[in-house]
């Protein structure tokens, strides 16, 4: 990797810069708040690197343009927010069935419906449980700082190519709009294996190739579906990302992702200052979910508190991971207003009192 000069950027711009530095030279998208800085940055800077920005007529067209570009093996990205992501779900399902790589950003907004543009985590289910039709998953990464938005964008391209699986960066208005110093860097990008046997490039000197998700012959569809599942299992075995703080001696563990985790960190610091033995688990990959971290909590932990900016979505994965071995409490806000560290601290203190 090569370190580059420090910059001061909005979260959305950090993603766009990271994508370009990761070798993503094709972007297809459609405007929607609160992620418009991504297409705007791409429109300005992609031509400088010989790349191409195209504003599509809809999110449906964007994701399908991405599908067509991804089939050629280049790094390609799109971005949107809640309602636009809903429109893209058809394409996500086809990209999963076609086993193509690609990166999509969801700077989600509160909903359902047109909703509002403020921060929320209401798209958790849609992101990690498939969303579109069929039995498939996306890789879902949840950054919580500007620097992490940058770093995980690069990681998203790498994982996406490694598994030929669409990777989603899941953020919200807080992360997209906050301006922070970023240390950019350029990863080593392999020229790409020329023998990638699925690339669609025109059948020069070889047999024609086919990118498809339709399998009608007896047994073919089941075989294809099992192969996809095997890929998801490999992901879960090798590429789970999670951050833990102070869990070694904790009596209570708080868990949160994305901007909520950032707020929770302040509350945890305050609690530790006051002598409370509390820790934090921050899932970075929401799919694959860090199940083992919850399953193998230290014996000192007797309770878990899940905090989310929704009415209880990740809490289901936490409960499944813990499998009734510990009680799991939930504190949630449905989006539209961001909880303060004090509010989280109060809820933490209340749960802690029940533990002690």
């Amino acid at each position, binding site marked *: 990797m090569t370190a580059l000069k420090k910059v001061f950027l909005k979260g959305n711009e950090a993603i766009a810069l990271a994508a370009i530095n990761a070798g993503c030279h*094709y972007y*297809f998208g459609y405007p929607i708040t609160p992620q418009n800085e991504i297409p705007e940055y791409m429109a300005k800077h992609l031509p400088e690197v010989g790349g*191409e920005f*195209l504003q*599509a*007529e*809809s999110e*449906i*067209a*964007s994701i*399908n*343009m*991405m*599908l*067509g*570009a*991804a*089939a*050629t093996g*280049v790094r*390609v990205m799109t971005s949107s927010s809640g309602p636009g992501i809903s429109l893209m779900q*058809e*394409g996500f399902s*086809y990209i999963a069935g*076609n086993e193509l790589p690609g990166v999509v950003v969801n700077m989600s907004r509160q909903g359902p419906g047109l909703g509002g543009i403020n921060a929320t985590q209401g798209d958790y289910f849609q992101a990690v449980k498939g969303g579109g039709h069929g039995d498939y998953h996306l890789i879902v990464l949840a950054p919580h700082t500007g620097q992490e938005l940058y770093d995980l964008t690069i990681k998203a391209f790498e994982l996406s190519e490694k598994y030929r699986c669409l990777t989603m960066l899941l953020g919200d208005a807080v992360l997209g709009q906050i301006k922070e110093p970023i240390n950019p860097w350029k990863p080593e990008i392999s020229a790409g294996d020329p023998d990638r046997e699925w690339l*669609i*490039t*025109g*059948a*020069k*000197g070889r047999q*024609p*190739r*086919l*990118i*498809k*998700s*339709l399998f009608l012959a007896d047994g073919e569809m089941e075989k294809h579906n099992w192969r996809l599942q095997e890929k998801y299992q490999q992901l879960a075995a090798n590429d789970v990302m999670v951050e833990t703080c102070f869990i070694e001696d904790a009596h209570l563990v708080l868990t949160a992702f994305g901007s909520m985790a950032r707020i929770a960190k302040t509350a945890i610091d305050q609690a530790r200052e006051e002598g409370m033995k509390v820790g934090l688990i921050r899932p970075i990959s929401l799919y694959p979910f860090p199940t083992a971290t919850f399953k193998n909590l230290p014996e000192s932990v007797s309770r878990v508190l899940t905090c989310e900016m929704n009415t209880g979505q990740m809490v289901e994965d936490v409960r499944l991971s813990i499998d009734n071995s510990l009680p799991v409490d939930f504190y949630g806000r449905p989006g539209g207003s961001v909880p303060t560290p004090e509010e989280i601290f109060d809820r933490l203190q209340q749960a802690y009192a029940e533990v002690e």
Partner: protein
Amino acid sequence: MKQVVKRPTSLTDKPFHFCPGCHHGIVHRLVAEALDFFNLREKTIGVASVGCSVFLYDYFAVDVIEAPHGRASAVATGTKRVLKDQIVFTYQGDGDLAAIGTAEIIHAANRGENITVIFVNNSIYGMTGGQMAPTTMLGQSSTTTPYGRDYHRDGYPIKMTEMLAALEGPSLVARVAVDKPANVKKARKIIRQAFQMQVEDKGFSFVEVLSACPTNWGMTPQKATKRVSDEMIPYFPLGVLKQKDVVDVL
């Protein structure tokens, strides 16, 4: 004996699965002949749509990407933007292009994407079993218009070629039919021209092909072919509606 006609090399050896009297086989052949003419087989990417045409990947000896229903021209846009030196074409039916994919085709055309679109209009949904298409004729019965298409309820058969010809973006917009040998010859010429536009970087080319679906029309192949001549052509007139020799912007 001198061989005057052979199977185009852009087609595989696999026999077509299409119903007896279906015109897809003719249109496939005309497209393959155009690819052969410009020696494009090894530099062409086909985008298959949803419907009877999805199986073109079995018949064309080129790289193929399968697109979601109606989205073929958006998929082709993405592919062509990366592979500017390759030839990218879509092959879409009327349900695909004129119903669910209307937005995608209009905007690809309006952008003047340097792709070729073959639009097979048989005025019905074939693969799903004969439901009404946007191009179904007034009075035509289908499984979802059992009493005939009524414009009060269903609107009029949509004229995609006329709609696209009204846009500034496209370079070639034409309608042909494959109901009789003379029309097949004209169709061959125009389909070849459509690929030539792309070869010469002249932008978006679109050919609507009027064709028959004897199975879902409930007709013999002969009667179905005659219906194309007698009923479809008068409403969907043949000809080149728009052709640019020089493209303004690419």
